């Protein structure tokens, strides 16, 4: 019943289930691919422009893809009301939250690794600034998306209209993180400014919101 033990077990279970069906990852992949294509059609950026708006495109695409995936991981817990089985057990609520968050984080990172080459191809990206900074931004930014996303997905499955609630709650709260991600990425790509401030901001955001999530998840899980 240790938090870490249960977190591990839940994570392994989630990964196994995902591995069996590959639903979430496949649909996410295809979905973000579509978003990229739709965007490049819709905006048809010129070569110079694209570097300027690529940061926005990438993160908006991942945001939408993540929303899709996040809803799915909780939907699985809800299908036969398995969540009730968790709730009656003595296992700590935060273990479930951590497992879901880490699992979603892994998914989205895999997605990003697979999609990155596509962006480079579609938008003819070439980074002017150092690439390792992009990596830091991606990891911090993804965590920001995922930790809040997991929490709010867990919150919104309790409501009517659960598919639509997640973006309604997640988007306003995530705006600063998104802004930081986009601006940091653009700074690195164009090399015009230093992304340091934005990276620091992301780090602060991650810490504050992870703490809040861990603090409040128990009340949310047991709300009824």
């Amino acid at each position, binding site marked *: 019943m240790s938090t870490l033990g249960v977190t591990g077990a839940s994570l392994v279970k989630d990964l196994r289930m995902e591995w069996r069906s590959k639903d979430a990852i496949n649909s996410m992949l295809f979905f973000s691919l579509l978003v990229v294509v739709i965007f490049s059609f819709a905006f048809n950026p010129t070569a110079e422009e694209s570097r300027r708006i690529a940061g926005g495109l990438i993160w908006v695409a991942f945001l939408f893809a993540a929303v899709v995936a996040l809803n799915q991981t909780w939907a699985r817990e809800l299908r036969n*009301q398995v969540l009730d089985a968790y709730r009656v057990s003595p296992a700590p609520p935060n273990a479930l939250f951590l497992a879901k968050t880490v699992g979603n984080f892994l998914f989205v990172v895999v997605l990003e690794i697979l999609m990155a080459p596509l962006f480079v191809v579609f938008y003819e990206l070439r980074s002017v600034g150092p690439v390792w900074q992009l990596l830091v931004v991606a990891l911090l930014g993804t965590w920001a998306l995922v930790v809040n996303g997991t929490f709010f997905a867990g919150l919104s499955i309790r409501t009517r209209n659960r598919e639509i609630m997640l973006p309604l709650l997640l988007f306003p709260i995530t705006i600063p993180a998104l802004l930081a991600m986009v601006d940091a990425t653009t700074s690195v790509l164009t090399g015009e400014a230093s992304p340091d401030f934005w990276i620091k901001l992301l780090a602060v955001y991650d810490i504050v919101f992870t703490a809040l999530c861990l603090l409040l998840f128990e009340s949310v899980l047991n709300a009824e």
Partner: protein
Amino acid sequence: MIGIAPSSPPVIVLENLVKFFGRFAAIRGISASFAGGRLYVILGDNGAGKSTLLRIVAGLMEPSQGSFTLLGAKTVHEVAHRVGYMGHAPLLYDELSGMENLRYFAGLYGLHDDVVGRHAMQMVGLDPELTRRVGQYSQGMRQRLSLARAVLHNPELMLLDEPFSNVDVRSARDMAAILGRVRDQGKTIFVVTHQAALMEGVADELVHMAEGQIVSRAEVVRDAAANAALRTAR
């Protein structure tokens, strides 16, 4: 623990329990006390509040008013590892096999030995080696596995909500017999069902609910006469 007398200390004490859904009172002030080591059958019309009562006692819902003690504790959390709950839904992952499900749920109770899961599956008459995913189980098999999940950690108190719904008669009889054996080991069991006849010969007490209240409690002497009474219980 075998052979506890009906006069053993109460496992559940309800004190003026009330549950509102908006303006509607689903539970209307229930005060009752249930002794351990017995098998209770909860009967009642649709909407009588049976599931709601069970969910409150299992800690899945807060009562609006009143309080209860469970195995001597004031909060369910303290005694969660001593209680087993089975709901309307199967509470199982369709994508995992039977043993994978049980292994995961055993982990939630701090049990990391496969023997636990095997034992539970054998008890309900399933083969632990079955590799099929639960999604491909028949309704009857799924209900058995659901029962196995609820009793996995050998709880002292079991709360079972309509374990026989949509289950064919044969499977249902088997499950009732299993419950009888578990009770004989000194556990306390609550079964909500619309098919009282299935519990013939194993029930200790019939608890009749109507409109959010317990309207009658009848001791069952497990013999032919009692069974006849049970058959015409409503």
